């Protein structure tokens, strides 16, 4: 609906002004300041989370481990190794940390979620169950919600969001393969705002969908294309304290910012120039420090930037 309104407004304006390159759309900038990089020696890291104490937890999934850094980027410890036993991983992709300090890992290749304490001690795990006719579960991200201790899991290959409690008991699920509202084509990284709304990156539908905590579709954020406000390969989503939705696009190498209702605000820039990232994927907002941590998968690093406006 919003899209149709914009087109209509554009057409009205066109009646009065000849369309010319001079009036072409210019990209709005969300100003940022580069702080520092963390180059941890990871191999194609995918996602990060912030602990209550500000430590950064990075998923180094190809190396089947989680790397922990303090807020200054100094490595503290790692945990995990390849395997299928407790505390072992097989190409994990997603991570989230609950307010009470439980670390949830989407252990993708093992089709399960594992839970650790902040020191990396294994707590428990549970399988992401599938229904008859579904492919093996492909959990690529987890989202620990404050509401009812829900744990949202994006099952990428089955195009669903599966909801458990944080002990691993299944609660409910939504979604199916498709392009309509509430349907997905490869749901990926998850995020939530202060209202416990759930934001799901819908990768091949080139959008982020927002839902209420129980799976009711709210809005689409972003759309198909390569114009400002369009998405080509959205991968990461993070929401700041102002409910601005930051969406990374791994192919275009950009982060775009929207309102939680989907209105395009701008592209993250530095010195008024679009800031290019190398395959930006998972992101996490540190509101206390006003930082955005951007995991750059093929650059094998985390870029830490400060959002200025």
């Amino acid at each position, binding site marked *: 609906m919003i899209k149709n309104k914009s*087109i209509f407004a554009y*057409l009205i304006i*066109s*009646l009065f002004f*000849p*369309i*010319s*390159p001079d009036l*072409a*759309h*210019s*990209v709005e900038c969300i100003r940022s300041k580069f702080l520092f990089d963390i180059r941890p020696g990871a*191999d*194609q890291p*995918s996602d990060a989370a912030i602990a209550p104490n500000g430590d950064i937890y990075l998923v180094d*999934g*190809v190396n089947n481990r989680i790397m922990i850094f303090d807020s200054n980027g100094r490595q503290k410890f790692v945990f995990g190794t390849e395997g299928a036993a407790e505390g072992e991983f097989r*190409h994990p*992709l997603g991570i989230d940390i609950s307010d009470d300090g439980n670390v949830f890992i989407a252990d*993708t*290749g093992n089709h399960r979620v594992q839970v650790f304490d902040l020191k990396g001690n294994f707590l428990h795990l549970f399988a992401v169950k599938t229904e008859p006719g579904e*492919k*093996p579960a492909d959990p*690529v991200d987890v989202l620990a919600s404050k509401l009812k201790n829900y744990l949202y899991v994006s099952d*990428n290959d089955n195009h669903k969001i599966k909801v458990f409690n944080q002990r691993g008991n299944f609660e409910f699920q939504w979604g199916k393969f498709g*392009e309509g509202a509430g349907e997905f084509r*490869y749901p*990926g*990284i998850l995020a939530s705002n202060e209202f416990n709304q759930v934001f799901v*990156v819908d*990768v*091949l539908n*080139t959008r982020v969908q927002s839902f209420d905590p129980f799976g009711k579709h709210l809005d689409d954020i972003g759309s*198909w*294309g*390569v*114009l*400002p406000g*369009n998405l*080509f*390969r959205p*991968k990461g989503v993070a929401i700041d304290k102002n409910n601005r939705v930051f969406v990374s*696009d*791994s*192919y*275009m*190498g*950009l982060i775009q910012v929207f309102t939680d209702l989907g209105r395009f605000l701008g*592209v993250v820039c530095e010195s008024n120039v*679009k800031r290019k990232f190398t*395959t930006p*994927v998972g992101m996490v907002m540190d509101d206390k420090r006003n930082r955005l941590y951007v995991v750059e*998968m*093929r650059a094998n690093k985390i870029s830490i930037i400060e959002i200025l406006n």
Partner: protein
Amino acid sequence: MFRSISFAYPFIIMVAFLSISSTATAAYMPSRRDCAICHVMWIDDFRTDKETLIEWQPGNVLMKDTQGVVSSEDICYSCHDGYVLDSRSTVWKFNQHKTFIKPTTRVTVPPSLTLSNKGELYCGTCHTPHVTGSPPEADLAGLTTFLRKKNVDSNLCEMCHINQADYRVTNGHPLHIMEPNFSDSLFQMGSKKAAERNKIICQTCHIVHGAKGEKIVITENKNSELCIICHDKQKQLVNSKHDLRLTLPDVKNAKQQLPSESGPCGACHAPHNAVNKRLWARQLAPGNLAAQMCLTCHGSKNIYDIKQIGQHSHPINVAPSVKDAIPHELPLFSESAARNPAGRIQCFTCHEVHRWDPSSPINTGGKDIEGDAATSFLRMSNSRSSTLCLACHIDKKQLVASDHNLEVTAPDEKNLFGFAPQDSGPCGACHIPHNAAGNKLWAKELSADKEVVTQLCTGCHHKDGSAKAKLVGQNSHPLNVGIEKLKPPPTDGQTVKSLPLYDGGGNIKAGQKIVCLTCHEPHTWDPGNGGAGSDYVFKNMEGDNSNSFLRKVNSPSSALCGSCHADKALVAGTAHDLNVTAPEAKNLGGQTVKESGLCGTCHFVHNSPNKVKLWARPLGRVKKHQGVMDALCTGCHSKKNIAQKKIPRIAWHPREKLIINTTQFNKKGNDYTPLFGDNGQEVEMGNISCTSCHNAHLWSYLVGQKNATENPEGKGAYKFLRTASKNTVCVVCHGPEALFRYLYFHDPEMRATFK
């Protein structure tokens, strides 16, 4: 071009267009977007004048069979990063097939596999999401690799890698043959199964994406980890002397790789484009491959500070003399180093170059460990019982159970390398296969001032040697003499009736000399039991003429002596054959004729108490006018002796009347009358003795051949006479009186008549 388009269209047209397209877009958009998921440059946004978030890259969007943005790695990765499909580990973590380079001259890319517009390999060379080739259906997990052609049994690989596929010509690893040792671990590491599980294909070793090793092999191969998955038996090479990382770390292979780069297997073998058969990857000296694979390093001309085989080494590239008897554990090889039951003995026949210790797979020796007969990359241990040597040299097996097994008779006798017999094995006490002191692979010091062939025996059989109890004595059969005097002369070339003649170096050669080895075969105690082998009971026994390492049994028939002394062998069956006339009579050694053999009744070969004719019987008493040769006869032809019935009543010739027997007679003629000196030697001037007229070995000059079944009684002109008296030397001096004088001096009755 698109950006230059001005949108100065009448409003009405715009409205009309949008009103139509607003309904059409809903259906059109998804399919268009699906194409543009990869074909990003097809997105219509680039055809507006709006600033796009990424640059439009013109010129390569719709060109058929060219690589554009659509086939860039970034596009592939944008889905294969885990958020649609996780190929991070498979494709991007490890090594993968080279892309965005031009094919080398070793590769032939067929037209059906496209190159980029720069002529480079790219993802689309092998893949297309439009699935023109394989697989038409996804696998059980729903995955498809979108290959342009089916890659059953790696035939897609072989379309470009023609040289590697033609491995027979290019000296590459065999393909499309069955390998029985494929383990599941190989497939767990990423190896692809052929249509038949155990068939070797390119993807057995190589994986196009996610290869952990260089050259896109499925796993790290710096330590030949991949090779030894199948070549499990060869892994014992690691940390042995043949692990060139230890012994030749600075010497590169033919691929210009150091051993540390190639790995232990790669130091000598290359899976593709090797320099020769057997995947050989080192330089080769001229010659047959099987030999030069070893000799290039271990031959006399190598430049490396490693073991050499020396000047005297076991022959190679020779056919075994007993092919059928060679056990399968000791394989024969063709010149191309391929196993071949009809092949020849090569280094590999005895050596398994990948295994230091045949008895212990965990004993790899080491750089500084000296080898011995139990190790040294031998196919089987050769210490103690010399199993390896005797596996081929089965005719030498009897040595183990004889006095020539020094482990029993001379346990402290060390060979050239300081190994005692128990370490060297019984063969190794006298022979070493490499770096021997001389001919016969001799394992003991050889002196330059004596002939080698003599030292082979006298090395031990001398007064201070380990065989000092077994010497030949002062009066022994002559050695190092030719065969010119033998009657009749031998006609079978190198041997005298299978008794070999030798040159000084120990080589069997025609027309050469009689040496110890002519009569003795030092490996066979009992020639009559030559096949005894290991079941032969070692007795440390005293020998006789039937054994004693003789080449032929020499009692009771004296076949050995008769081989050379054919003219003397005619004695058999005559009155001088004691088997006939005095079977119980004993010689000076206390042997009867059965024990000593026919010849041994009168002659000792070694340790004879008499120099004259090596006489083995008591000498008879002789009168003043008689010589030493007469004493040989009178030992028997005298009272109370075995031939007392055959004593001439008168038999003498004046000793002061010296005779010259060569002036009118051909020494080789039938009527020649030999004269003998004081030591029994033939002389040209001297006195007549019994043996001047009698040939003790020949009953009749008329017969000229023995009659072993008869015991001829002397008659008339026979009586072991050399010839008819009318033609003898007697006539020369005595003319017509010769017969009268003969009768006078030999026939008492006739003498009486004359009186």
